[in-house]
């Protein structure tokens, strides 16, 4: 970190999403970093611009209009450092999740070991896996070469052998990869090698004349031990390098951000890891970001990260792919009434191909948008491995959640899709601060902390969710909420009911709950919970709908239930 980066006062943090380019301006006000303004504009990855700087300019215009501070000029997409007239910013950070998912090939020695580890390492990257190779896939080296040639990857992730382990097999696969890269020719194909460390120099020398080789720590240094985090970071660098070669403007942005143009999910992971390490009261954090093209669920527990990005799950460009992956029922169960199957397919296909970045105009449209968000989030969580339903804090992000007409709908989508159990604080990232602050943390760790402490995220409130699968109608739990002034509210949670108790943002209260013997309030079936909870714009949410939350199958009952739940969180 240079002195200039450390002293930086005015920070511009940019995220290039598939649908929207967002720019956040942070500055020091009365000695503390604060979020000053956000600018948004449609992203310009695609035709006719194919240059992200066009969308950025419009996003910066928003900020200039609010702050009066000039951020770009005819000569410079961004004025940095600050010029003698006080225009511009001290520091620029950038993240990107837009553009098509990179076509990637995974290579490993054995499917159940190194190939599985390679797959694990790529879960946080915006990739489309188009081919996999292993020693036991039943194909000759020539057939493997043909397969890679036909797949035309932009990125190859090569994991193979434990450290000081297999040598000839790794080199045989290296030859196949090398020949494929040679035949594919042109471009800057990226190869990430995360295999036997003893061979890293050999592999690099064999491939570096025909590909851009990134050497990462072995994802499986010993048999059975999988360490994907470091490989994930190298993969992030390779991903951005590949994107910068094909998407206009990203190279310039990488230069502005001192070479640290990060994938959006990786940057979000940096902040969540930091937050869960003891810098905040929350040790188990889940971030759920549903976008137009992709969905990310990132869990951070005591600094350990579990990061998953699904480039085929989303509410806009990927709406049709979401329906194909999750099935019609995963979408239709969240719609009131009984829409025709063809009508649902027509709506989703239109959303995906014709109108991916549009906004809902009426109530039916809003239900459909929220249903897509639930299906995408549930799908991503289902695919993720090792993420439980116990969280201290859930943060919702992405345009669908951030732009809901009422924050209660965002909370409802999070509860329905993620099915937390126990007391969980819900927050909403309306300005996409989690990834942008994550990228900033590399250069200035103080800024994220101070921005978050000063209300950067909207606190929705604490949800107490009861884990029960029964269809009982009797009371599931009784409890008491005691606020800081000693005022108490006694409550009962009945099956199928969602309701709120008032507790303002910035206030805390003591929550005591005694669940029924077969009901889990977060401490295990039948065990009482006594915890301090924070209020928010919704107060305290009491959720007795069971886990997983399943709306009634009868159309009339479902319509009534969905409306009742919506009203419970949006009519307060």
């Amino acid at each position, binding site marked *: 970190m240079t002195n200039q980066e450390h002293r930086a006062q005015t920070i511009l943090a940019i995220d290039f999403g598939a649908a929207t380019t967002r720019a956040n301006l942070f500055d020091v006000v009365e000695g503390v970093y604060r979020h000053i303004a956000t600018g948004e504009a449609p992203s310009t990855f695609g035709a006719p611009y194919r240059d992200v700087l066009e969308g950025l300019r419009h996003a910066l215009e928003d900020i200039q209009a609010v702050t009066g501070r000039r951020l770009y000029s005819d000569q410079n997409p961004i004025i940095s450092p600050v010029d003698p007239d006080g225009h511009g910013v001290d520091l620029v950070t950038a993240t990107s999740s837009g553009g098509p998912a990179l076509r990637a090939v995974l290579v490993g020695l054995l499917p159940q070991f190194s190939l599985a580890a390679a797959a694990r390492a790529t879960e946080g990257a915006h990739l489309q896996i188009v081919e996999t190779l292993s020693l036991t896939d039943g194909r000759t080296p020539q057939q493997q070469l043909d397969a890679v040639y036909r797949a035309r990857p932009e990125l190859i992730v090569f994991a193979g052998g434990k450290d000081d382990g297999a040598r000839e097999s790794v080199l045989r696969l290296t030859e196949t990869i090398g020949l494929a890269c040679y035949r594919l020719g042109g471009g800057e194909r990226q190869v990430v090698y995360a295999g036997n460390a003893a061979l890293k120099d050999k592999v690099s020398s064999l491939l570096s004349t025909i590909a851009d080789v990134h050497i990462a720590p072995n994802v499986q240094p010993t048999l059975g031990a999988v360490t994907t985090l470091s490989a994930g970071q190298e993969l992030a660098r390779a991903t951005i390098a590949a994107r910068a070669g094909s998407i206009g403007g990203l190279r310039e942005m990488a230069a502005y951000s001192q070479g640290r143009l990060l994938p959006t999910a990786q940057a979000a992971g940096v902040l969540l890891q930091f937050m869960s390490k003891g810098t905040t009261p929350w040790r188990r954090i889940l971030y759920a970001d549903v976008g137009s093209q992709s969905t990310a669920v990132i869990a951070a527990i005591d600094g350990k990260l579990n990061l998953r990005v699904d480039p085929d799950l989303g509410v806009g460009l990927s709406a049709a792919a979401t329906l194909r992956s999750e099935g019609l029922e995963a979408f239709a169960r969240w719609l009131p009434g009984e829409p025709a199957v063809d009508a649902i397919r027509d709506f989703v296909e*239109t959303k995906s191909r014709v109108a991916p970045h549009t906004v809902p*105009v*009426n109530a039916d449209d*809003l239900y459909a948008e929220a249903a897509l968000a639930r299906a995408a989030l549930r799908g991503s969580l289902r695919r993720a491995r090792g993420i439980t339903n116990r969280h201290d804090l859930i943060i919702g992000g992405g345009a669908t959640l951030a732009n809901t007409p009422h924050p209660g709908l965002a909370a409802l989508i999070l509860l329905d899709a993620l099915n937390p159990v126990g007391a969980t604080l819900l927050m909403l990232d309306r300005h996409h601060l989690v990834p942008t602050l994550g990228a900033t943390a590399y250069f200035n760790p103080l800024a994220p902390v101070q921005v978050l402490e000063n209300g950067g995220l909207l606190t929705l409130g604490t949800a107490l969710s009861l884990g029960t699968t029964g269809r009982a109608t009797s009371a599931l739990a009784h409890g008491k909420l005691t606020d800081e002034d000693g005022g108490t509210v006694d409550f009962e949670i009945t099956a199928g009911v969602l309701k709120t108790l008032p507790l303002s943002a910035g206030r805390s209260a003591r929550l005591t709950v005694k669940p029924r013997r077969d009901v889990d309030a977060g401490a295990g079936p039948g065990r009482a919970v006594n915890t301090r909870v924070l209020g928010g714009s919704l107060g305290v949410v009491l959720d007795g709908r069971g886990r997983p939350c399943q709306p009634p199958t009868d159309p009339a009952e479902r319509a009534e239930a969905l409306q009742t739940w919506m009203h419970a969180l949006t009519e307060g």
Partner: protein
Amino acid sequence: MAGATEVLVTEGQRVASGDVIARGEVTDAHQLLDLAARVGVRADKLEPYLLKREGDLIKKGEAVARKRGLLGTSRSATAPADSRLVLLDGGKALLASVRPVELRAGLPGTVVGPTSGGVVTIETAGAVLSGVWGNGRDDFSVLRMQTAEPGTVLHGGLLEASLRGAVVAGGSVLDAGFFEGLAEIEVSGLILGRISTSLLAAAEKAPFPVLVVEGFGEGGFSLPVFALLNGNAGREVWLNACAWDRNGSDRPEAIIPLPANNAPLLPVGGPLVEGKRVRILRGPEAGRVGHITGLSDRPMLLPSGIRARLAVIALDDVPGQRPTVSAPFANLELLI
């Protein structure tokens, strides 16, 4: 085209739709031959025994390397298939089975700009109709309107032998059997206003290009699109029914070449301002077309509860009437 490509046209040259503008080859499969092992020498001693060089085309059974022994014996490494030698390295040869391909112009026009780097740009004056879905095929032929109204649903009763070789246009399609009927007649293409998603699989399998212009579900052409097609019936149309790549430059489209009139190129995109023609993409008025008559300067409340800046649009797709509706900026597509 991958590999060696020969461009056959030059800047300024006029081309017809069927003209071959480039030749090249595509690789079907690879073979890796260990030449050194087969002729029985060390890899670094192979050079004197090589009979072929990189780039050479080799027939099946032809020797790539040969070492003669005593008494007229020899050891050879031969090509297992007709192929091109693409790499010689470390005593091994990489052979690629290739087949020739030709690239045709697709539409009449003039080659503009340099043709270096394997890129040929053809310019033509005409009307462009951007679509939303294509089945991955393309063709060039005469446009036949098989519809008297924008919303006409095409069905088997409308099939006739005179459609052979034509690009047929209609509001929508009744069932999957219609695609089979068109295939039997051997039409050159189909332009639809809308299509039900339940018929996409049949459209994908059709042996001719299928272009969908407006969207998915019930309905047909919007009035302006219908008027454009109707006004050009009988002209030749290039139907490029590629898949829509929103991140790239491929969008399914129909191009109707028109006599050049030296008219300036129409601007693409630009800001939303009063007078611009737009198509509404979402909501009860989805698919309708009109002109912007007003823009809100602050976000307004929609029935969904969302606040968004709105455009007031005078619809011009109802003959004799100009009803106005409002729609969020985000839900509008700018038309030329």
